């Protein structure tokens, strides 16, 4: 809870004590050098959102955000298991990355100009296209956000969600009372206890929340309106372009693999493919991986470790009942459009 203060203090310490990160000799990327010498990628994820990053019964963190982290570990270290997850809430996530506690942040975090301009951080891509939604109890009979005038809304502070709903209610001349609690469990329990009429966050988070209610899921309904754009993605520190490239192209490699029909099952066969797109993706031809500063077959490690984007999706978010929708590939009516790997 006091963690943001701690991270803030660490950031203060880090900026007080050290000079600006010097150009390293090794890979030309301070972050990659750190990851390699540590033998492990440290990735910031949420404190627990089903489908995104939630520890299973064996303590293994599962979800699309966790797998995106693993894919980066595979690209840099060639091994999806060389990873440590750091759970972060909405208010300490950025300072943790700024202070260097984590190498990478994949925590259902929305890409906004403000964050990129002020935080000294950068979005390397979008692994999930989302939007702000509202959950209400079925018993309330509420059918639309427009009926929420005068309602009390539970929301986590420090999010783009709280800004989006303040804007939306003002624009629609509606009033609401916010209840803001940092801890996700606490805000959800508070909503369930009836302190709030509605619980608002990314629609994916609401689907995960509803899913976690188990047999009581029927008591909760997601209102039809999605009131904002919330492109969720991976964040890195500014000033390390090489690592930025690796993170960005890790996701693109997974999307391209889906587009080209390469899966974790057929990847070895595909290495023998004659299709130049596939050969370049898998490093059987050319030296694009090496040029980027990682193993030339980095995509093979990724696909073997976590699969292509569709495989990752089916394993993580699909069970929540979230339709692929705008998260489909561009040629299937979605927004994911990996640039050419050539």
């Amino acid at each position: 809870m006091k963690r943001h203060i701690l991270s803030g203090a660490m950031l203060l310490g880090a900026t007080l004590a050290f000079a600006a990160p010097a150009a390293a000799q090794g890979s030309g990327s301070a972050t990659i050098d750190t990851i390699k010498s540590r033998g492990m990628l440290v990735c910031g994820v949420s404190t627990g959102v089903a489908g995104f990053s939630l520890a299973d019964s064996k303590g293994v963190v599962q979800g699309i955000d966790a797998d995106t982290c693993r894919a980066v570990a595979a690209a840099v270290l060639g091994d999806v298991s060389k990873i440590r997850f750091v759970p972060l809430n909405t208010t300490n996530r950025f300072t943790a990355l700024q202070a260097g506690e984590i190498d990478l942040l994949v925590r259902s975090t929305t890409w906004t100009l403000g964050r990129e301009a002020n935080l000294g951080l950068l979005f390397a891509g979008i692994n999930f296209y989302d939007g702000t939604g509202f959950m209400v109890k079925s018993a309330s009979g509420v059918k639309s956000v427009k009926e929420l005038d005068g309602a009390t809304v539970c929301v986590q502070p420090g999010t783009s969600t709280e800004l989006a709903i303040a804007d939306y209610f003002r624009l629609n001349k509606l009033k609401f009372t916010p209840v803001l609690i940092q801890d996700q469990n606490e805000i959800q329990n508070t909503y369930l206890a009836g302190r709030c009429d509605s619980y608002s966050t990314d629609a994916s988070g609401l689907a995960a929340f509803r899913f976690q209610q188990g047999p009581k899921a029927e008591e909760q309904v997601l209102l039809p309106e999605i009131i904002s754009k919330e492109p969720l993605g991976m964040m890195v520190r500014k000033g390390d372009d090489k690592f930025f490239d690796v993170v960005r192209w890790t996701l693109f490699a997974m999307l391209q693999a889906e587009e080209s029909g390469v899966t974790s099952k057929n990847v070895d066969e595909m290495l023998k493919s004659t299709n130049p797109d596939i050969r370049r993706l898998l490093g059987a031809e050319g030296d694009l991986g090496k040029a980027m500063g990682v193993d030339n077959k980095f995509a093979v490690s990724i696909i073997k470790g976590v699969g292509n984007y569709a495989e990752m999706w089916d394993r993580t978010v699909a069970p929540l009942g979230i339709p692929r929708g705008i998260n489909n590939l561009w040629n299937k009516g979605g927004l994911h459009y990996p640039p050419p790997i050539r």
Partner: protein
Amino acid sequence: MSGAVIDPRQAPIRAAPKKALSLSWSDPRFRNIVWQVVVLGTVALIVWYLVQNTTRNLAARRIATGFAFLGRTAGIPIGEALIDYDPSISTYGRALLIGLLNTLKVAVVGVVLATILGTLLGIARLSKNWLIARLSAIYVEVIRDLPVLLQLLFWYTALQGLPTPKNSFHPLPGVFLSNRGIKIPVVEWETPFWWALAAFVVGVIGTVAWSRSATRQQEATGVRPKVWPVALGFLVGFPVLIWGALGAPFAVEMPVLRGFNFTGGATVSPEYSALTLGLVIYTSSYIAEIVRSGILAVPTGQWEAAGALGMRSGTVLRKIVLPQALRVIIPPMTSQYLNLTKNSSLAVAIGYQDIVSIASTTLNQTGQAIEGIAAIMLVYLIISLSISLLMNWYNARIALVER
């Protein structure tokens, strides 16, 4: 006391003869000045270096710096505020001010209530009534041993167990208790109320003046004129008269259930109630012990002597024992007040928007962590210093004046 005898305690401390400051190392005053300049200079240099370095590094990491964000539109929603706030036009500066006021709202009310409750408990623990003394002891021992965060979460959960607005408890007209908080009616404020308030202030001054003159009369004649009828007239009669002369406006705004919640009236939110309740209960257990030890520190001879004069035990407590106990009580009490204020930062856990909560949201939305934390530190420093100063002043006032 004749002029010939000099009480050494009353004479000003005899000062050494004044000597001009000589610029020589053997002059202790000169040495002191040099050392102080050296120390201050070094500290200033270190601070300057750290500030420079931090700014340079933040710039290198392209993290926004400076306090310009204070003037920017906040956009963050705030649940309860003592002053007007609208996320679409109000600034971060105003949001932080609301946070400060919210912290003060908890601290001031908390300190007053914890003092009252703690004092009663402390006295109760010394009661001759076995049951009362036991109950108070159990309260103190149990409450002190439970982590305060746990207690806050407990109270917050308990308050959420109240019924929904539609089924709310309705103990008095216009008062509703529900899981949305306590709703109370408010009197619509009009100009005559300001005048009545001014009359009340005048009344307070008049009452104080009257009670002083009563004390003088008592010292001169041994008979104390009655104070309370005059006080009543000054404090109640006069303001009411003014208010009546100005047309006696009186309109009450009642809370009414409309849609999801009540509209109109005033709200005491569950977050505020839980935080204040939790802190008061927790701190009062410490205050009870302080009060108890303060009373025990007064020698039994004082009780017996007062008893021999024929005073009743309540009177002895109020007039003889408590005033002496206060000297022992005040210093540890000060640190309890500081604790309560600092513990109020646990508000984030239960969604009350105190200064820490709003500053951390602000630093998260603006990315200005260092400025945000500086704001929090500054606020706590100012509040803590104010409490300390006030208590030190009070302590000095009631300190033993030897005659």
